[in-house]
């Protein structure tokens, strides 16, 4: 039987399994330790809780993780000690550092050198200038390829987190959806959504909720440099009006894992072409879903999508993707259908445990279009949908 959104999440096992995956990949890449300062990587490596924050707050107060590949426990530098995972001994939880401050960065550099020894190879996911100066005597390489490989395959508890976040997001949308009407403002919708998500147990949001009124023709603005609809853009303040086409994109967090909920609303009566567009979107989703199985490549997915809409526009936004992974980052590997091109897609081979968010778009310039998102887990025999169906007739 398919798991439900209430499936238990074993946080100890979640942390242990992730760290094991990271250490395995980092060791295979020849790294003696991984020093992480990016929020998605630190969450993955340690499970440390940090308050959801705008970049203007998150960047000056980074959480930092040093993960040795010899199997010993990570060290964590955090501004929020009550968010440290219980499996870290107290002497592994250290006060938060300002990584744009030479003094703090030098202290981190010294701590890293002491714990890894000279001559060690340290993988890093990002650097501030101060940190770069502090690590100048150590050998540092980009840790992101190893980190990406670790995150590509989700553990059962990660899948349970994504499922729970998505289910929570879907419930919140179901609750606030009826508010969408002429005269309601995007801010009112956002307020109701955030309040609802907090009440349901979300620990934060991934992005500002997007309720973007999209003009039915790209030429009507905003002026696009891609030829496609400019999406997503920051929320407007004007009330919704009868006939508005609204593209929705929201994400909330549970244990550091994001949901990704996309849909399309017509305010008032739907455009006459909308039903046909939804059924074409369903057809694209079904064709792509049918292609998802272990051994399939990203190119198999883009081909399935293009063939379903043969002779029409590429059925996704070309500055984004047809599909992306999701985990402790809102969009992570694999990215399929990007402007990196068919060769990269053909080299992207799916395996069991990878989670994909499909986000196709049907667009008929002049009549607008529809988008939605569905989340798939690649299984041994094919795939399983973790989200509710994204198209209305399938719900």
């Amino acid at each position, binding site marked *: 039987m398919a798991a439900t959104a209430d499936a238990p999440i074993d946080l100890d096992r979640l942390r242990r399994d992730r760290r094991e995956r990271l250490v395995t990949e980092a060791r295979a890449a020849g790294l003696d330790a991984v020093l992480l300062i*990016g*929020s*998605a990587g630190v969450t993955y490596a340690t499970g440390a809780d940090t*308050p*959801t*924050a*705008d*970049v*203007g*707050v*998150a*960047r*000056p*107060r980074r959480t930092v993780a040093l993960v040795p590949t010899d199997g010993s426990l990570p060290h964590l530098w955090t501004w*929020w*000690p*009550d*968010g440290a995972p219980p499996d870290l001994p107290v002497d592994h939880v250290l006060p938060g550092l300002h990584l*744009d*401050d030479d*003094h703090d960065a030098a202290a981190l550099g010294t701590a890293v050198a002491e714990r890894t020894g000279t001559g060690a190879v340290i993988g*890093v996911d*990002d*650097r*501030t*200038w101060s940190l*770069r100066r502090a690590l100048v005597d150590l050998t540092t390489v*980009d840790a992101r390829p190893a980190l990406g490989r670790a995150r590509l395959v989700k553990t059962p508890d990660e899948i349970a987190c994504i499922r729970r976040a998505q289910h929570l997001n879907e419930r919140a949308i179901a609750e606030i959806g009826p508010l969408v009407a002429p005269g309601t403002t995007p*801010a*009112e919708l*956002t*307020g*109701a959504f*955030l*309040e*609802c*998500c*907090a*009440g349901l*147990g979300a620990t*934060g*949001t*991934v*992005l*500002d909720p997007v309720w973007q009124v999209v003009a039915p023709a790209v030429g009507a*603005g905003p*002026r*696009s*440099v*891609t030829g496609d609809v*400019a999406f*997503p*853009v*920051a*929320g*407007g303040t004007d009330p919704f009006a009868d006939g508005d086409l609204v593209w929705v994109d929201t994400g909330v967090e549970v244990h550091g894992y994001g949901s990704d909920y996309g849909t399309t609303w017509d305010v008032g009566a739907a455009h006459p072409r909308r039903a046909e567009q939804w059924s074409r979107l369903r057809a694209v989703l079904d064709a792509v879903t049918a292609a998802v199985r272990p051994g399939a490549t990203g190119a198999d997915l883009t081909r399935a999508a293009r063939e379903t809409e043969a002779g029409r526009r590429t059925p996704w936004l070309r*500055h984004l993707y047809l599909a992306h992974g999701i985990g402790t980052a*809102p969009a992570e590997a694999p*990215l399929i259908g990007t402007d*990196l091109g068919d060769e990269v897609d053909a080299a992207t081979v799916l395996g069991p445990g990878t989670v994909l968010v499909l986000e196709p778009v049907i667009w008929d310039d002049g009549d607008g279009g529809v988008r939605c998102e569905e989340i798939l887990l690649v299984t041994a025999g094919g795939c399983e949908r973790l989200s509710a169906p994204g198209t209305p007739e399938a719900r």
Partner: protein
Amino acid sequence: MTTPTGDDRAHLDRLLDAMTAAGVDALLLGHEDGIRWVTGADRLRLTGTRPFAPACVVVRATRTAHLLATSDAGLPAFLDVDHVYGPSWDLVTLATRVAAVPGLARARTVGTDGTDPTVEDVLAAFLPVATFVDAGPLLRGVRRRTSPADRAGIAAAIGVAQRGLATVVGTVAPGVTERRLSGAFAGRIGRLGATMPAFATATCVAGTAPRSFPGERTLAAGDLVTLRGGVVLDGWLGLVARTRAVGGATAGQVSAAEAALETLRLVTTACRPGRPVGSLRARPDVRAVDGLGTDLAPIGADDPLAVDDVCWIEVAVDGVLLGDVVHVGTDATVPLTGVPYGLG
């Protein structure tokens, strides 16, 4: 729609003047809070940190900025679609677009706000005459000194945070969960147009140290509940922290609140030009003295305060948390926050 600069290029001009003084020919900026300070662009807000990518280019020779975006949505009037370069997942394609920004190819000293090794190598190949330098001190110096318009933006953000806090205070009662208080804050500020909480609202029953994560804990009579709320409005941060007693304060709680307020006032009064921040942070019970604008900016311990700095001060005494945003004025340092400090 208003933004940190509105349609005014005052910030960009201040930055260009500082670049001239520092001998910096161009800037490549990756951090969104800095980009919104410079350009006033109102763009989608995402949580958490991201590695450096060249998302904004400022060129001294042309005195203008270019932005990585898919359209002109949210741009101020002085930057049109010709100042937009499109995104790419391919670093080489992106570097080609960045290098094509007028005037950048001739820039010799190029400041950046991050040093991702892979990105820097690719950019270096496309900008062969450029030497990359740390733009952090230049940016911090320019951003720190607030103008009256900047402070009006910060005050508006604080206003929204305070109204959110008022809603939370109205919800504090025995039997209510911490999570519901957080939801009440998020709901109110969202309805007021501040869509992104500056940080997840911490509304927690006080313990021996301030807690950061609201949970399912239920408030009971006799509890102190710490309320820390932040918003981003038009790019500016607004923060406030207060503590309320659930069902009436005890004598001990009242004296803790008095001690916390005394510390907050002492630190506020001591935030004067020339004073190094480290000496203020070292006081007992002081939890934060940081710069505040479009980010919560660390001020180095030895860095003296200056006129028109705006700071976030947070103190905690025996479960009573208080936080104010203050302006270091010419004659005095005054709170921009205006919520009663008492526990009732």
